[in-house]
């Protein structure tokens, strides 16, 4: 059941052209930036693409050590590009440590681009190698471009008076030049960008341009081994419009803001820093959007309570965190459920338990999201499946929270947060406005009277004359909202709270299936596993397998429809990055005979692994 123990073979992604490039170096080496530039070059060619940065730990570390290596992977090509690639076709390693950490991510026969000058005794020792990997046989079977990138770069920028240290900073541009050449790309777009960034006559712009061109011409000139085949980037036609790359964190931030704006609410994200949830707070802080603010609280409990206070006062309260912080919010979320106020809770899941692996993705907080509170305390749990989908899920969450007066939890994860994909910038003015109608003066107001359709109580904010009332976490009379110790009332309120949430499945009646309506295998996934699953499904489907895929967005309440859908398949497989949590929920709710495929390694599934498992199940059955 461990995706990582499957052996590395071909990428298996053979139907359409795609390629995966991985950049690795010290955090100071500018690998994220270089990867970003290549991503952009692919994007403007109209290709599908997916990127993922990979940090090993939370803190920086001495240069040249393995635990200081950070990397960035980008995959682009034709057709469906939903995952950032199982393995890299090309690895750029700026030093021995980067090679050591990342070599197992490269396909056999893949291309390594190395800075030979860093493979000196000191660098090799720092990386923990016993001997120089370029000199023993350990890289056999790989294609290697080993150039003295350091010196070639320093040489190229010398004329601008940059010292060695500053010169070294341009190594990434030299490398990018070489890679652009590999993909038969010119340097002009990047040069424009550099000039925009630094100013045309800036010395750094000039030095970086010189390094870029040097790398490009180095490749152009015969020095590169002739058996390295230059890859030709195809031209593809995606939808018309203005595009950008978007990460899950940005997409969530945009979605939240859009949802609040369309509801005509001021919004405050109340949060406390934690990896990997913080970027959402950082983005919103930076945007300085009308009516939208962030509040950094003293801890996660305060953050959650403040967010509830925001909603109580008639704003939109949002709170975000990851595992340890979400655990701390448990009690306060229970209050929000009890007083029936809208609240958005974002959990950027990371690998647990406890502090776990803070930078790694996992989906192991689902059970906690659904059942992790004391008492019968139901809420809504949604999960976006891709960076761009975050934008929709955030809006949907707000819509539900307001319409049903309920907390909604969004389960994102460390992968979604940082992964990016191309995004057609939406026309915000085209999104429907849906202003909240707060309760106004009404002589017969009863704080817990409900809308018979949604079972929602009315949202009445302080400041509304004549509607003064009290709410709290003690059990309330089902109409007046006054404290009630009556056993029958408690039963009724328990039922009402459950029913209100159960009904919300109507909002998710349409369950999108990729593939035929019936067949041999239905794969059910949720969240960030969408990438690898959809690719595996498409590949098998193209080969004639009767396989379908649904990635469910609403994890609680579970739609009854799912049962009908699943009943038309011989086998149902639930794929997730935990020990089988959705699988267990589905067993209870709908389908006792589903199977489970899990992985808890902090890393995303590999497409090739899924492919094998799917085939196995289908073939066994037939």
């Amino acid at each position: 059941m461990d995706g990582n123990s499957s052996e590395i073979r071909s990428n298996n992604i053979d139907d359409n052209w795609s390629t995966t490039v991985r950049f690795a170096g010290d955090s100071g080496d500018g690998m994220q930036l270089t990867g970003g530039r290549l991503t952009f070059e692919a994007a403007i060619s109209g290709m599908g693409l997916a990127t993922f940065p990979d940090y090993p730990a939370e803190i920086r570390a001495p240069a040249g050590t393995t635990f200081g290596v950070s990397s960035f992977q980008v995959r682009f090509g034709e057709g469906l590009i939903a995952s950032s690639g199982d393995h890299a076709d090309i690895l750029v390693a700026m030093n021995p440590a980067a090679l050591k950490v990342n070599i197992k991510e490269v396909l056999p026969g893949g291309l390594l681009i190395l800075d030979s000058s860093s493979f000196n005794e000191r660098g090799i020792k720092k990386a923990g190698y016993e001997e120089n990997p370029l000199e023993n046989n350990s890289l056999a079977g790989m294609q290697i471009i080993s150039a003295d990138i350091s010196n070639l770069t320093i040489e190229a920028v010398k004329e601008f008076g940059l010292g060695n240290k500053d010169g070294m900073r341009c190594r990434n541009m030299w490398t990018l030049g070489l890679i652009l050449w590999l993909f038969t790309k010119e340097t002009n777009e990047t040069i424009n960008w550099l000039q925009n960034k630094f100013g045309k006559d800036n010395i750094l712009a000039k030095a970086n341009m010189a390094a870029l061109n040097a790398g490009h011409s180095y490749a152009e000139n015969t020095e590169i081994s002739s058996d390295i085949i230059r890859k030709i980037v195809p031209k593809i036609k995606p939808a018309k419009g203005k595009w950008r790359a978007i990460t899950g964190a940005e997409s969530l931030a945009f979605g939240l803001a859009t949802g609040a704006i369309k509801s005509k609410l001021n919004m405050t994200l109340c949060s406390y820093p934690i990896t990997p949830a913080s970027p959402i707070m950082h983005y919103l802080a930076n945007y300085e959007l009308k009516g939208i603010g962030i509040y950094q609280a003293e801890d996660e409990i305060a953050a959650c309570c403040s967010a509830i206070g925001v909603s109580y006062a008639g704003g939109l309260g949002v709170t975000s965190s990851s595992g340890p912080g979400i655990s701390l919010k448990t009690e306060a979320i229970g209050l929000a459920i009890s007083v029936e106020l809208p609240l958005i809770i974002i959990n950027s899941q990371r690998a647990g338990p406890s502090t776990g692996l803070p930078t790694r993705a996992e989906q192991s907080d689902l059970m906690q999201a659904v059942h992790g509170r004391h008492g019968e305390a139901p809420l809504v749990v949604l999960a976006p499946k891709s960076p761009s989908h975050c934008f929709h899920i955030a809006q949907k969450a707000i819509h539900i929270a307001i319409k049903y007066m309920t907390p909604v939890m969004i389960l994102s994860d460390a992968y979604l947060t940082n992964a990016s994909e191309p995004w057609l910038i939406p026309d915000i003015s085209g999104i429907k406005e849906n202003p909240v109608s707060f309760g106004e003066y009404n002589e017969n107001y009863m704080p817990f009277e409900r809308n018979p359709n949604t079972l929602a109580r009315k949202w009445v904010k302080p400041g509304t004359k004549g509607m003064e009332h009290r709410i709290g976490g003690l059990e309330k009379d089902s109409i007046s909202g006054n404290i009630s110790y009556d056993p029958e009332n408690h039963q009724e309120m328990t039922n009402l709270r459950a029913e209100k949430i159960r009904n919300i499945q109507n909002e998710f009646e349409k369950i999108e299936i990729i593939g035929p309506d019936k067949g041999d295998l239905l794969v059910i996934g949720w969240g960030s596993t969408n990438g690898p699953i959809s690719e595996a499904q498409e590949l098998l489907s193209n080969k004639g397998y009767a396989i379908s895929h649904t990635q469910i967005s609403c994890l609680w309440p579970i739609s009854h429809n799912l049962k009908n859908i699943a009943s038309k398949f011989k086998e149902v497989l639930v794929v997730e990055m935990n020990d089988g949590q959705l699988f267990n929920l589905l067993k209870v709710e709908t389908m006792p005979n589903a199977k489970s495929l899990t992985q808890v390694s902090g890393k995303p599934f590999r497409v090739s692994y899924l492919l094998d498992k799917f085939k196995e199940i289908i073939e066994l059955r037939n």
Partner: protein
Amino acid sequence: MSINTEPDKLKPTDYASDQEVRWCPGCGDYAILNAVKKTLADKQAKKENTVFVSGIGCSSRLPYYMATYGFHTIHGRAPAFATGIKITNPKLDVWVITGDGDSLSIGGNHFIHLFRKNLNCQVLLFNNEIYGLTKGQASPASRIGTISPSTPSGSLEAPISACELALSSGATFVARGVDTAIKKLVPTLSKAQEHVGTSLVEIYQNCIVYNDDVFKSFTDKSVASEKQIHLEHGQPMLFGENNKKGLAINKDYSSLEIIDLEQNEKEISRVLVHDYKNKTIANLLTQMDQKSMPVALGVIYCVEKPTLDNYYTEKLNQHNNEISNIMEKGQTWTI
């Protein structure tokens, strides 16, 4: 809840909700409730703009008894709720109702950060030096040796002083009152409400069931004049019968001492004049030992500083970006 029948002038009773008050008979909370209603009536506070936010405890039930908006939240966290409320609608007049357990034990962190942030609200701390609602365990405000169900042979730990803690956390208004001394309490609450910033009013509240008479040594009528000093800004710190005693700072500045003016008339010059902007003296006033010294009541400390809600909303008002513009910032490409 009828909007039209509101009388021209609101009486204290107009601030009472329709819920029966459920404290133990004789509990000091009743008196405080009355003082609060009277304060609101004195100010003709708008019910709809007044919000009582509380944690959990006997004291924290107060919001149910007010005809204003009210939010009975969870244990110790009322300041955090108040923050969310005020940054969303700074026009609301927010009263945080809390007990010594609620604010000094589980809620300690939010308590100190509220003062640090200086949210414009009032904190009424009902200090009965005990956990009332959970049947009388020692709280962080309980004196050493307090016998309680969890400390049957007497509590071990030194009590914490709410006022001192608040001062060190950056509080801009610190005051004290006594539950049943409603005539003194109402003006203090009134000043707290007027202060722009977080106002702490620590109210000594008698829990008749679990900690009866713990404040008797200074609240009892027979000793009140000798054991209480009522501070007035700009006035000398005099107390006792015929104001024949005064407070002065001792030689090494380590504490205050009592000057008996009857015996040492000349030392009147050493008697401090209350300057509620002086933090050093405020600290010493809150640190006075109840056995040998009077208890300082009234407004101990008061300074002005920017408030969080004001800061926050000012900043928010400067936010001018449109989402569509922000989305298009950075690298884009058109197809």
